[in-house]
């Protein structure tokens, strides 16, 4: 299985982003997705800046894919989108049907996790338009994935979101601005102060969700490092790790060593647990509520 680093979902300062990706150049990931997928107002990195990072990573031997916004509302959003789809050098991950429209039958693309591909017929349709890889919706289970694996078009690769706070929902409303009592149009880009989002607790103090601008994430970290064997059995080609502000290098290494069978499952789960901003979960993969954790390192006896 190949290892991919998904697009950074948070708004980090330019220097941090650049330093982050310089480290990634030396990290054992095969594929890196770049670009802003959450909010069109975020601007510390423009397309030329992303392209510079893309070239640096490509020179380091990474496959680079440019990701597009999940919520495209205005003409100016579309203008930015067209610049990405027409970049000429790098493949594109389409996160909206508008992006698919611009790429279909012209340029091979990756069908992103927000396109709602849930059945073999839809996967075949999206393949016929030129998709070479698809990212499974986060809420899909191993069981629901299997029929798509059995009937998928030749050469179609399957990628599964396997580590990070889950991107659960998009709104046009900005919850970070709402928290600060600011209108979205005058948000002052305060999400830059939340490098892993802002945790939303229930009224009895349990971490539940996380605010990341217009995106709502899980507070818990989705983590399939204990499930890699079943991902492999189901024929998943690419395992996606979502960037977090700290420890990405170690997380990538633990996944890499687990995939290469240099590291046992129990040991990997115990080591990665320490690197989370919150507790872990893996319910979706097991057909359960996403927030559940169905397998604990402590329950594994013989590894």
């Amino acid at each position, binding site marked *: 299985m190949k290892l991919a680093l998904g697009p950074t979902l948070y708004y980090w300062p330019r220097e941090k982003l650049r330093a982050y990706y310089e480290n990634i150049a030396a990290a054992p990931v095969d594929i890196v997705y770049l670009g802003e997928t959450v909010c069109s107002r975020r601007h510390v990195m423009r397309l030329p800046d992303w392209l510079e990072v893309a070239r640096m990573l490509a020179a380091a031997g990474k496959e680079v894919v440019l990701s597009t916004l999940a*919520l495209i509302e205005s003409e100016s959003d579309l203008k930015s989108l067209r610049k990405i789809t027409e970049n000429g050098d790098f493949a594109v991950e389409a996160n909206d049907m508008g992006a698919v429209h611009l790429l279909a039958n012209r340029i091979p693309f990756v069908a992103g996790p927000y396109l*709602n591909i849930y059945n073999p017929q839809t996967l075949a349709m999206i393949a016929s338009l030129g998709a070479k890889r698809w990212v499974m919706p986060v809420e899909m289970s191993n069981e629901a994935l299997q029929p798509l694996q059995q009937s998928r078009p030749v050469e179609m690769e399957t990628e599964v979101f396997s580590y990070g706070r889950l991107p659960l929902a998009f709104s046009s409303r900005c919850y970070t601005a709402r928290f600060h009592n600011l209108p979205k149009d005058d948000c002052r880009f305060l999400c830059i102060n939340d490098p892993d989002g802002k945790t939303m607790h229930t009224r009895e103090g349990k971490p539940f969700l996380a605010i990341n601008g217009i995106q709502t994430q899980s507070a818990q970290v989705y983590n399939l490092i204990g499930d890699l064997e079943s991902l492999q059995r189901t024929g998943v080609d690419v395992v996606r790790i979502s960037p977090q502000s700290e420890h990405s290098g170690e997380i990538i290494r633990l996944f890499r060593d687990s995939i290469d069978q240099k590291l046992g499952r129990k040991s990997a789960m115990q080591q990665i647990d320490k690197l989370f901003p919150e507790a872990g979960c893996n319910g979706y993969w097991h057909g359960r509520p996403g927030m559940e954790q169905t397998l604990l390192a402590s329950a594994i006896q013989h590894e």
Partner: protein
Amino acid sequence: MPNLHPPGYAFLKQPEYKLELVCPAGSLPALKVAVDNGADCVYIGFRDDTNARNFTGLNFDAANARAGVAYAHAKNTRVFLALNTYPRAAGWVRWKKAIDQAAELGMDAVILADLGLMQYAMKTHPQLQLHLSVQGSATNYEAINFYHEHFGIHRAVLPRVLSFAQVEELSCKTRVELELFGFGGLCVMVEGRCSLSSYATGESPNNCGVCSPPKAVRWQQTPDGLESRLNGVLIDRYTDKENTGYPTLCKGRFVVEGETYYAMEEPTSLNTLELLPELLRIKVRGLKIEGRQRSPAYVAQVARVWREAIDQCVKDPPGFSVRPAWAADLGKVSEGQQHTLGAYHRPWK
């Protein structure tokens, strides 16, 4: 692309344009009162997870659907069938049969979100009109034109996230008819792009046609107040003096950095009566009322008010104003007793 709809109201005199009132019906009695109170179109769903209001005791079996279509057609009203969830492989045959049944029942359109289903419908029942569901998350004209180019969709229902200026901009760049939510419950998330419900309960609008399903809800009186929980997660807690609301996940009160508030959205209803002249000006084709899960009394009340308002507005768009009686009547049936223009009014965002 040229501007397809030049500004002004001159087109109102053209017989081919009409703003249609599209009303919800979760039962045959609701369908009948919608038709009787002036709906131009009624939308319904079958009694299972093929549609996004999959609630116990709600919706239509084949016999009721047939009776509903007959009743509506006799009074010149069209019927749309919502088949707007995304089937997984195990459900494919059932969803496919639902499309066949829609065609057989003489539905005037099916409201779809899934690409595979659209392709099936287009190939198997070319005469069946396709509407893109709000669950299809099409928020820009490139997306809408994608569905038009590949499946010949006739109409698109827009997610409740666009500002009015964005709707207007979009309306100029597509030949697809647009349908907008005008009244009822308000989804604060982009429809079709929300997995909050499955994160907490395992069931989502996309796959199961439910959000925050009743079977996961528990109410409990505690020394701290009345608590509502969803699969164990505390959604809200009420003092004796507060009005309680259904624990829809995004409408709960949560704590962010020590502050307790409606972190996502207050329990409130969408109401766009005052936008009617503008909706006519940009040639919106469908004005959709939310609420298939609501009673026939709700449907009757809302249909009556909107029928009157639309008729008034068409007669004299510049002179249109919202009558206090309309607002009062709609207020009686609103969720949370509060109204908002939602995303159509930009500061809401």
